[in-house]
């Protein structure tokens, strides 16, 4: 699956959709495929603060544990609660229904473009 052009990316395989001062964050298809079937998602609580490239959550598959790195400093304003009963949503629709958190931010670090991210994963 192609990495959508309208999203920004991190080298830790998160995608970021910017809408005003709120960023929706998920993991890329590449990351979801590498993890395998996701069985548990541990997301930060609403109201908690995030720090750029600090771990703020965990994504577990049958085989391994992936860490969610915050793509920016900010505050969690929403977490995708549907994933607690349906964690495989991250596999089936990583760029859509499988989003993880929404973070309110005041400034953005430098993020990767789709083509830069494609280069990183060798596509």
């Amino acid at each position: 699956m192609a990495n959508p052009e309208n999203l920004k990316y991190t080298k830790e395989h998160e995608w970021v959709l910017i809408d005003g001062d709120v960023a929706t964050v998920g993991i890329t298809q590449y990351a979801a495929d590498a993890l395998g079937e996701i069985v548990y998602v541990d997301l930060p609580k609403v109201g908690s603060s995030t720090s750029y490239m600090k771990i703020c959550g965990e994504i577990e598959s049958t085989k391994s544990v992936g860490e969610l790195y915050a793509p920016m400093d900010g505050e969690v304003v929403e977490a995708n609660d549907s994933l607690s009963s349906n964690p495989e949503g991250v596999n089936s629709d990583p760029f859509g229904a499988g989003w993880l958190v929404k973070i309110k931010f005041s400034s953005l670090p430098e993020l990767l473009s789709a083509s830069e991210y494609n280069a990183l994963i060798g596509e």
Partner: protein
Amino acid sequence: MLETALADEHKKLGASFTDFGGWNMPVRYGSDLDEHHAVRNYAGLFDISHMGEIRIKGDAANSLDFALISKLSELKIGKAKYTMICNEQGGIIDDLIGYRMAEDEYLIVANAGNREVVFRELSARTKGFDVTVTDESQDWSLIAIQGPMAAEILQQQVDIDLAQIKYYAIDAASLSGISVLLARTGYTGEDGFEVFVSNDQAAKVWNLLLESDTQLVPCGLACRDTLRLEAGMPLYGHELSLETTPCDVNLGRVVRHDKGESFSGSALGLLKDSTPKKLLFGIRGEGRRAARADYEIFVAGAETTIGTVTSGALSPTLGYPIAMAMLDGSLGLEIGSKLEADVRGTKVPYEVVELPFYKRGK
């Protein structure tokens, strides 16, 4: 990295690959959970050609009684036994299946990563016997068909009555004209067969089976691991190692002490009646957060670790976290003992349960 004769078939099926024992093996084709459930509920097909095959001919029965911890000389022709090769201290070099192919001939199947050391050890230990030891691993492909429908699917393709091959038995057969060996063995906790076939015919057999039943699912190593964990089967490098003896992993019954001198005999004889320092337990948790390999285990409420998880996952069949853990053998832990696992900084409740976690219905 080494590739099996089926590598092209896996690529055509869109497999993801992983390095396992130096081999580039399919880890999954699509969803490993779907593959897992297919084996529990219907049937799955595995490429396990990375396994090693070593043939011993001549005074094989006596030489293997000396070299291994079991008494393979008692095996009837066409039967198999789970066994191990240990070092002089009783540490496990590998776990093996030994098949008696003829009065004077055995086939030993070893783990991929241990094939070389097992071949070397068998060659060295049998020097005083009139035997030839041959590593045939490069000649054989091994395809496992596992699950409640495995026998029915395979039956349509072969010229012998599979009901005659009992659990842990092996026989030669023709699979649509291709010479194969069919062993009723496996590593999933389900009924099933392991099909030995020469490399040049392997793709044919693989595709014949997949095409014969569209519900038969190609399965990767990811689900093979959760299947064997549910079935309480040890994996070398996790439950089994040079630092582990058969008694430590509740497999003291595999050791035979009534066969005269053997390579590991005196060490294992000493261990027979002593309490193992560490012992393998099955433990289960709650919720969905699984303790994984190397996570520390505690008695509930206590501060000192009593051991570590050797394999752990959220059980796809049971829906809760399960693990095997190597724990202090002196604590008298029993079924129901309350424990805690340190899951990345958070202690979560676990308790000792019976192994295996999953047993198939009769």
